[in-house]
């Protein structure tokens, strides 16, 4: 997808694969909703939808090409996507509104760790805890790299646990590439508080030359290298 579209963000797409797969499976054929706020990793959610046959796999070939609804950032014109993201800091408060309106539904919101820089993220943390939105689950794809470098160097927000807990959230941390760990935390019984899971991930996970490399926030794999990279992922799986 990203090779044919010559699009960016393959690193972010790969860090969110397991998180996306687990949440999309959890909401599948339920009333629950998944808000994919880190919209630049759109290819991942589109692929997950195709995997569940919610959109035709054939459509993935149109990703980010002229006239396609599968735009480079997440688009609600695509079936089973309820919210268009791309500008960071919007999906989380949108999910807060959803969680207020539909208390019987579980609302999962995925944000990036760069998105923790946004003021609206902290506003949303405060109001969600104040309103005791226990049906709200926030997952942070913490791959440690944002647009211009390492999150630790650009705006260090660690330690996250004390921050989230002081805001009144139930805090968990997990290996963001462990399907079983994520599934366990995401599907356990809700408490009286909203829940956050810091999913520790690796940007570019699965391809050694991409892992933890900032440049893969921007570059797309060349057609010549594609098969080799796909084989590498296949062999590591």
């Amino acid at each position, binding site marked *: 997808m990203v090779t044919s579209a010559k699009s960016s963000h393959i690193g972010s797409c790969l860090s969110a694969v397991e998180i996306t797969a687990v949440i999309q499976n959890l909401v599948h054929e339920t009333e629950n909703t998944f808000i994919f706020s880190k919209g630049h990793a759109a290819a991942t959610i589109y692929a997950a939808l195709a995997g569940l046959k919610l959109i035709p796999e054939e459509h993935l070939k149109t990703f980010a090409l002229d006239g396609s609804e599968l735009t480079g950032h997440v688009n609600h014109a695509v079936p089973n996507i309820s*919210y268009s993201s791309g500008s960071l800091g919007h999906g*989380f408060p*949108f*999910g*807060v509104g959803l969680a207020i309106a539909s208390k019987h539904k579980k609302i999962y919101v995925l944000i990036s760790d760069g998105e923790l820089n946004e003021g609206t993220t902290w506003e*949303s943390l405060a109001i969600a805890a104040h*309103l005791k939105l226990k049906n709200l689950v926030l997952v942070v794809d913490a791959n440690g790299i944002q647009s211009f470098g390492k999150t630790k160097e650009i705006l260090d927000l660690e330690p996250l646990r004390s921050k989230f807990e002081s805001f009144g959230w139930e805090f968990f941390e997990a290996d963001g590439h462990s399907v079983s760990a994520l599934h366990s935390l995401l599907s356990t019984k809700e408490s009286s508080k909203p829940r956050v899971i810091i999913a520790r991930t690796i940007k570019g996970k699965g391809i050694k030359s991409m892992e933890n490399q900032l440049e893969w926030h921007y570059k797309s794999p060349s057609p010549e290298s594609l098969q080799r990279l796909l084989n590498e992922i296949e062999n590591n799986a």
Partner: protein
Amino acid sequence: MKLKTMRKIFIKTLLKYSKVNEAPYLITGDLGYSVLEPYQELYPSRFINVGIMEQSMMSIAAGLASQGNKVFAYSISNFATFRALEQLRLDIAFHNLDVCVVGIGTGFQYGAAGYSHWAIEDLAIVSSLEKFRIFSPSDESSTNKAVLSFLQNGGPTYLRLGKSSLNLNDKFDSKFILPNVRIFGSGNQLIFSHGSLAQEIIQNESFDPHNFSLVVFDEIEPILNKEFNTLIKASKRLKVIEDVVFSGSLGSRVCRFLTENNLNIPFKWIGLDGSKLESAGGSENYLRARELGFKYLDNLFLD
């Protein structure tokens, strides 16, 4: 005449509507003291004060609306529009959701408060979001109608609330040119205006309905219809007066209409140019001291 605020009319309309219908959500960015309390008391589960966070408030409003709810999101005009502009654009307009952004204070209503509170560019900025319907009601009946129109039709909506006396129709009869555009008088000198300014014009002693026709745009319509063509052709001159900057204003829509329809009429456009914004002053004082101008209403009725 003592003017009362449209926000009181707004909440009265909501309370009346909610007696017989499901109460819509009303969320506020910690504003509305002495106005919103009756709604908060009667419908506590439909009223949310999210605190002072206008950007998140608009995203939350969109999230609420995405579940099939009608939502009013209430703040001072600039905070509701400029502060949360991207939320209006991406979350509300692009998703085409039933959110009515309620902006309090139009033009120089908060005159003494200074520039931060003057809503003189809000129309410009929201006009760029083509999916938004924009209401700039001039009196009690049009405020009531705008609120009910949103409750019936939904869609991204901006409601700018200023001051109001009772009803323009208490002064003169009118007829509708468009569902939310009225004409007062039968004169061949046309004046187009909207919002609280229309109140001041119609109450000015120089407004003679035999010489002038005041067209009041309670909704800032994106497209003017053929009746305007006939009306303008039958008139001697046209003036547009509004307490906002030129960009995206009613006047800019009228200019487009005149040009596209090859209408040639002596035309004066009275609005704000964005200068001299540093000193305080109540609405009337401020308008009189500027290009909109010294004795601006007196001049309005001269050639």
